């Protein structure tokens, strides 16, 4: 009787200790896993923040390309690895011309590194080169909206047309009337010296009927 009582008492104490240990263990595991998931989140945030800045840098790098480069992206921009201290990150860039949109490109940069992947998409507008040799006609059709510049371009174009095939490029870069017009003059001057014969348009001209007329011609020919 005494023996069995003392026996059961000892067993109970052991069980108590085991249960207490188990409870302490569970609590400790819960606390540690919270902390470690917090740590993982923090380091993931750091990696993603860095990846985002790097992706934005890549987007900036394709933003100042012109139409030709965007339609055939230079190899150095397609994919690569960032320089140290970011050599854990690499990028790939895909640029596609948007269907049914003029001169609008969809660009996607994906930065991978340290187990994370950060995609960043944007639209880039880069006006395509405009044929200005047949530009006599285009210029006439385009008429007034391009005013001074268009007129000058028109004047210059017929003379040059035969010599250099009349390929001009529209970089569409003109920003603000003054700059655009000043540059237009300069380009015509260069054309006269036998250069590329380029006529630039500014953004106002890009939406004018003149440009639309010029652009629909190749587009309707293709499609």
């Amino acid at each position: 009787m005494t023996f069995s009582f003392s026996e059961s008492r000892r067993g109970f104490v052991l069980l108590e200790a085991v249960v207490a240990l188990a409870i302490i263990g569970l609590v400790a595991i819960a606390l540690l896993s919270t902390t470690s998931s917090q740590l993982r989140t923090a380091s993931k945030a750091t990696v993603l923040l860095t990846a985002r800045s790097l992706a934005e840098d890549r987007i900036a790098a394709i933003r100042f390309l012109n139409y030709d480069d965007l339609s055939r992206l230079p190899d150095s921009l397609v994919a690569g690895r960032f320089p140290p201290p970011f050599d854990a990150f690499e990028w790939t860039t895909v640029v596609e011309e948007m269907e049914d949109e003029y001169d609008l490109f969809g660009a996607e940069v994906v930065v991978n590194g340290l187990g994370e992947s950060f995609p960043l998409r944007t639209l880039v507008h880069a006006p395509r080169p405009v044929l200005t040799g047949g530009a006599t006609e285009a210029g006439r059709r385009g008429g007034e909206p391009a005013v001074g510049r268009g007129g000058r371009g028109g004047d210059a174009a017929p003379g040059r047309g035969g010599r250099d095939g009349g390929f001009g490029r529209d970089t569409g870069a003109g920003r603000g009337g003054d700059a655009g017009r000043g540059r237009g003059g300069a380009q015509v001057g260069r054309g006269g010296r036998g250069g590329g014969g380029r006529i630039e348009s500014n953004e106002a001209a890009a939406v004018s009927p003149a440009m639309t007329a010029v652009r629909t011609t190749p587009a309707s020919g293709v499609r």
Partner: protein
Amino acid sequence: MRMRAGFTLIEVLVGLSVSALALTAGFAALSFVADRASQAEAATVSALEGVAARELLVEWLTGARLRAPGNTGSFQGTDGEARGGMPDDQLMFPTTARTPLHVRNTVVRLYIDRDDETPETGLVAELTERIQDEPRRFELVPQAIGLDIHYLPEAADAFEWLPDWLGRNQLPRAVELVLHVAPGDTVPPLLRYPIRVALGR
């Protein structure tokens, strides 16, 4: 009844040493975790600082204009080496981006302040609305010890960055800012990476 008399000295000692071992291990693990946590936090804060400074500069530069209305300033980038051996480049530009001045047009001057007598050091932005106003200065990257700025000309076939942009009647196609920091400095790594901005697009 002898079974219920209590623990022997040996039992107590063994129990104490076991719990001491367990406590030591627990503390070591905890302090390791705490170290990692503070490291991770520092890295996140550093990345955030880098992102914030980069985005501020990108936003201001994206809003850059050739001239401010009323000719209070124009886009002028000076090359430090060409300017009497000064080590740092300098860039002044009007911008329509939001700045702490809360005006439509702010003229921003970015430069490196090495003068110990001024309260600012490192990369400083000096903001004015009009020339006669007292400029307000903001320390952007106090750890910066050098600044190189390059400009990409507008010509479609030009891919060479120029060291300065003076007296031009158009904006460059893009601007690149490279900050220099002392080796081993705690500057956010993102600020060691060049900041490139396409202008006016």
